């Protein structure tokens, strides 16, 4: 028996090799992506733990005194620390933000070189250094000071080094952080770090957030509060690694299923061919279990080889795959093997292969020895569907094709799933690229201003009144189905020039206008009664959606300036933000957030380059899967129909006619799978972006260009026809001896 297995392995080298290859591919994708992304997340998590990442940060009007700080620490068990930072403009519109190297919360780590050991030394973030060509030992002039770069490093609160917490994308060329000694803050620039509104990080040691929150509310006016899980600089990294992880799991898992089914169809073919031998063995009282074991061996061996090689390959590619995350400043990534990945990578394929093959084999062996003895031909039963179909009539060749499809139901379904999976991948690749492209265009069209500033000092908005429109913006949580979603509440002047929202004039006290992005992302609509949660006050406000405004790039709830204060139950009116067409020259340190439309679009452009590479990669993998699935399945179907094909060949049918009869009907299959994949890939792409933007107020709508649809379709067809071309040769090779062979 073992010799036979070896012979089987050798006899169908190409077929078996493609099974192994597909299993390998699926396991490699799962293991590769998960191992690298896990390593990424674990490294970040370890770094956060060892370097005392904050539990959150808040801003208050005024300053927390030394004694208040001591009270919070000793009585409330919570550490607080001022977030001192000074932004300096360098030439070429670049900004470097200097932070204290010496900190208790969010301690910087040195990734290369040495820590800061004198007042003239600086630790600098590596992405910024790379983008701008700074090396260790370089002297950099910042403001009136000259610093020597002692090393590269980063603190947990700037792992995603974005200028404003609300920024979607980083831009290492134009913004970076550096860490210097306390001298700068305590001796040189003291006036710059004490503002009207001051920001603090906190670390709950034995403390409890509620105690801290109550204390702050009693003693200060809380302006802003961002818990660590909402902090995009700290947490985006985890959302970002989740996408590839999930995608690889779903895609790899589906592929394993498809391959397992293909393998079990192939096993079934083999059993059918040997049905007479099996019948004799069973009739002689041979143990059924032993036969099952025999027929299981080959699929299990193939799967075991595939998953072992796949695991190894996954481990191998996990190191370079780290580079798909280019945005973050993290210490060197440590890749570790994990039990769950071994289980998934090595165990799941075997289990799935075992189950699918077992079902196929047992179903077959449960037939009586007699019916097995009569052989494959006599065991053919005609399904009711087929019988009914026979009565329908219609052109013969059409009926013949449909009959073949019906007869090969399982093969048909697997082929469909395979084409469907690769079509989803294919379309997703285009969706991912086009969506980002589309986002730029939408941003270009819909972002009504060139510059937006949120000022730390509320009263300062008046200084720019002439060149800008004043507005009020506040971070809020929208409560939906027990979930808190980050949104912006923005109060606009009714006759403002930036947003043309007609409904503003007609709003009742608690009514608002939501952006189309909000409607699309959370499914809220006109008439809905919603609740906003203000984290800084710990209060909920009721609102009602009166209208929707065409704005696809951000989760914004618009309302009139007066309504803003009615909704937030705040009697004291103020402005905190400015919208403008030109650069207002606001000092970097006076703004808590800053948007420059051109800059924002440039950084998305950089992201697009990466997405383009990624989507070409996905496209090639998708086409490869399509070719392999179509090829192996058609090969299996041909193998099963070998005798019949040999027969009609003998009658004088030409090879291309035979192809038309047995394989060409599958084009319908491909077309249907492709059509059905469109909505699914749209959904998948949307989920992909929603995952990445989970913690952000931005929204990116899944979008595909018509030309991309055509290209995707062309790629699918090309893959299909490529495998058909190979199949055609197999049809030509079927010998006549198949037909003349005695069938006893």
């Amino acid at each position: 028996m073992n010799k036979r297995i070896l012979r089987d392995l050798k006899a169908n080298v190409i077929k078996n090799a493609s099974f192994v290859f597909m299993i390998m591919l699926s396991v490699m994708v799962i293991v590769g992506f998960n191992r690298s992304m896990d390593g990424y997340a674990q490294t970040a998590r370890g770094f956060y733990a060892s370097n005392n990442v904050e539990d959150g940060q808040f801003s208050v009007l005024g300053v927390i005194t030394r004694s208040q700080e001591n009270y919070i620490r000793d009585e409330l068990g919570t550490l607080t620390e001022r977030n001192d930072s000074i932004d300096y403009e360098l030439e070429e519109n670049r900004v470097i933000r200097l932070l204290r190297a010496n900190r208790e919360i969010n301690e910087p780590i040195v990734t290369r070189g040495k820590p800061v050991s004198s007042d003239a030394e600086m630790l600098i973030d590596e992405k910024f250094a790379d983008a701008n060509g700074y090396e260790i030992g370089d002297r950099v002039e910042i403001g009136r000071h000259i610093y020597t770069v002692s090393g590269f490093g980063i603190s947990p609160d700037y792992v995603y080094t974005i200028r404003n917490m609300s920024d979607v994308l980083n831009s290492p060329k134009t913004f970076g952080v550096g860490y210097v000694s306390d001298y700068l803050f305590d001796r040189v620039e003291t006036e710059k770090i004490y503002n009207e509104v001051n920001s603090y990080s906190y670390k709950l040691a034995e403390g409890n957030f509620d105690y801290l929150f109550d204390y702050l509310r009693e003693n200060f006016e809380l302006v802003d509060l961002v818990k660590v899980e909402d902090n995009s600089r700290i947490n985006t990294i985890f959302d970002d690694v989740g996408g590839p992880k999930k995608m690889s799991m779903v895609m790899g898992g589906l592929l394993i299923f498809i391959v397992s089914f293909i393998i079990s169809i192939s096993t079934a073919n083999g059993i059918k061919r040997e049905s007479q031998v099996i019948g004799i063995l069973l009739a002689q009282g041979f143990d059924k279990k032993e036969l099952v074991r025999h027929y299981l061996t080959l699929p299990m061996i193939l799967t075991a080889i595939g998953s072992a090689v796949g695991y190894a390959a996954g481990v191998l590619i996990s190191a370079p795959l780290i580079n798909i995350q280019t945005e973050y400043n993290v210490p060197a990534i440590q890749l570790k093997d994990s039990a769950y990945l071994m289980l998934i990578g090595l165990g799941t394929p075997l289990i799935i292969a075992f189950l699918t093959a077992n079902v196929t084999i047992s179903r077959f062996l449960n037939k009586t020895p007699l019916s097995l003895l009569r052989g494959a031909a006599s065991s053919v039963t005609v399904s009711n569907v087929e019988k009914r179909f026979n009565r329908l009539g219609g052109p013969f060749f059409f009926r013949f094709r449909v009959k073949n499809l019906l007869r090969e139901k399982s093969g048909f379904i697997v082929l469909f799933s395979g084409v469907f999976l690769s079509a989803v991948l294919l379309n997703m690749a285009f969706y991912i690229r086009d969506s980002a492209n589309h986002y730029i265009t939408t941003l270009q069209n819909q972002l009504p201003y060139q510059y937006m500033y949120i000022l730390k000092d509320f009263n300062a908005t008046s200084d720019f009144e002439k060149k800008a429109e004043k507005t009020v913006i506040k971070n809020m949580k929208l409560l939906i189905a027990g979930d808190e979603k980050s949104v912006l509440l923005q109060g606009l002047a009714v006759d403002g020039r930036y947003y043309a929202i007609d409904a503003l004039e007609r709003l009742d006290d608690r009514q608002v206008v939501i952006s189309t992005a909000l409607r699309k992302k959370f499914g809220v609509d006109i008439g809905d009664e919603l609740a906003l949660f203000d984290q800084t006050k710990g209060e909920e406000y009721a609102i009602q959606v009166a209208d929707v405004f065409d704005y696809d790039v951000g989760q914004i709830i618009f309302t009139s300036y007066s309504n803003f204060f009615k909704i937030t139950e705040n009697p004291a009116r103020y402005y905190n933000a400015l919208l403008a067409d030109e650069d207002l020259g606001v000092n970097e340190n006076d703004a808590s957030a800053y948007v420059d439309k051109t800059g924002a679009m440039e950084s998305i452009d950089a992201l697009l380059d990466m997405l383009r590479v990624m989507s070409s990669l996905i496209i090639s993998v998708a086409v490869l899967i399509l070719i392999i699935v179509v090829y192996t399945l058609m090969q299996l179907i041909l193998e099963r129909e070998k005798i019949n094909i040999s027969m009609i060949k003998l009658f004088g049918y030409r090879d291309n006619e035979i192809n038309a009869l047995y394989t060409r009907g599958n084009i319908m299959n491909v077309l249907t799978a492709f059509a059905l994949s469109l909505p699914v890939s749209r959904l998948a792409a949307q989920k992909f972006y929603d995952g990445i933007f989970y913690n952000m107020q931005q929204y990116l709508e899944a979008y595909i260009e018509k030309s991309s649809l055509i290209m995707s379709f062309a790629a699918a067809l090309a893959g299909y026809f490529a495998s058909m071309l190979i199949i055609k040769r197999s049809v030509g090779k079927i010998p006549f001896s198949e037909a003349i062979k005695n069938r006893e």
Partner: protein
Amino acid sequence: MFLDVKSLTKKYKSGERDSLALDGVTFSADTGEVCVIFGPSGSGKSTLMNIIGGIESATSGSVTVDGIEITNKSSRALIEYRRKYVGFVFQFYNLIPNLTIRENIEICARLGDDPLDMDVLMAKTGVKDQEDKFPSQLSGGQQQRVAIARALVKNPKILLCDEPTGALDYKTSKDVLKLFEEINRAYRVTIVMITHNEALKRMATRVVRVKDGKALSAEVNENVYPVDQIVW
């Protein structure tokens, strides 16, 4: 002559040694003849027939059918030859299991330039009542009738039958042979039939004896018996 086989040889390479399946076979037959080939097992009968049918190549010698020499043709040309000229009937019927009886015949009807009327043919071969059944629902004799109808429907010039009654009992065999007789008469199709049954030489117009790849004799039977009167 309609069928001319001249010094036909066929060598099979099996491992180190060549085996000579056909060793200079020569015989011929006229249009509309029934030519029966006898010989012990392994003597080369099927090989001979497969070469005539254009599904096997000859090593040397020639076969001419209706003036066309087929032994030097490309495989592409041989497809066209089989399509127009040849009908096959085998011992084990070899019908396509997932096609109905009618469809099994229909699939070959599309090959001929001038196919026979399917319904007439089905009536003649006695399978009209079974046309919507599937092969597995028919007895061996019935299946062989379908196979004959299938071979005949494209209106071939030559019908090649390799032990067509080998798997059938006496009575059924006789029915099938009568069918051949009728068909031969009705359509003037030349029939070449391999059989182990010595008695059948009496229904043939020509009898070829093969042994060890050689045609021992090829004689014309002047005294053809109707199948009805042959017993064995």
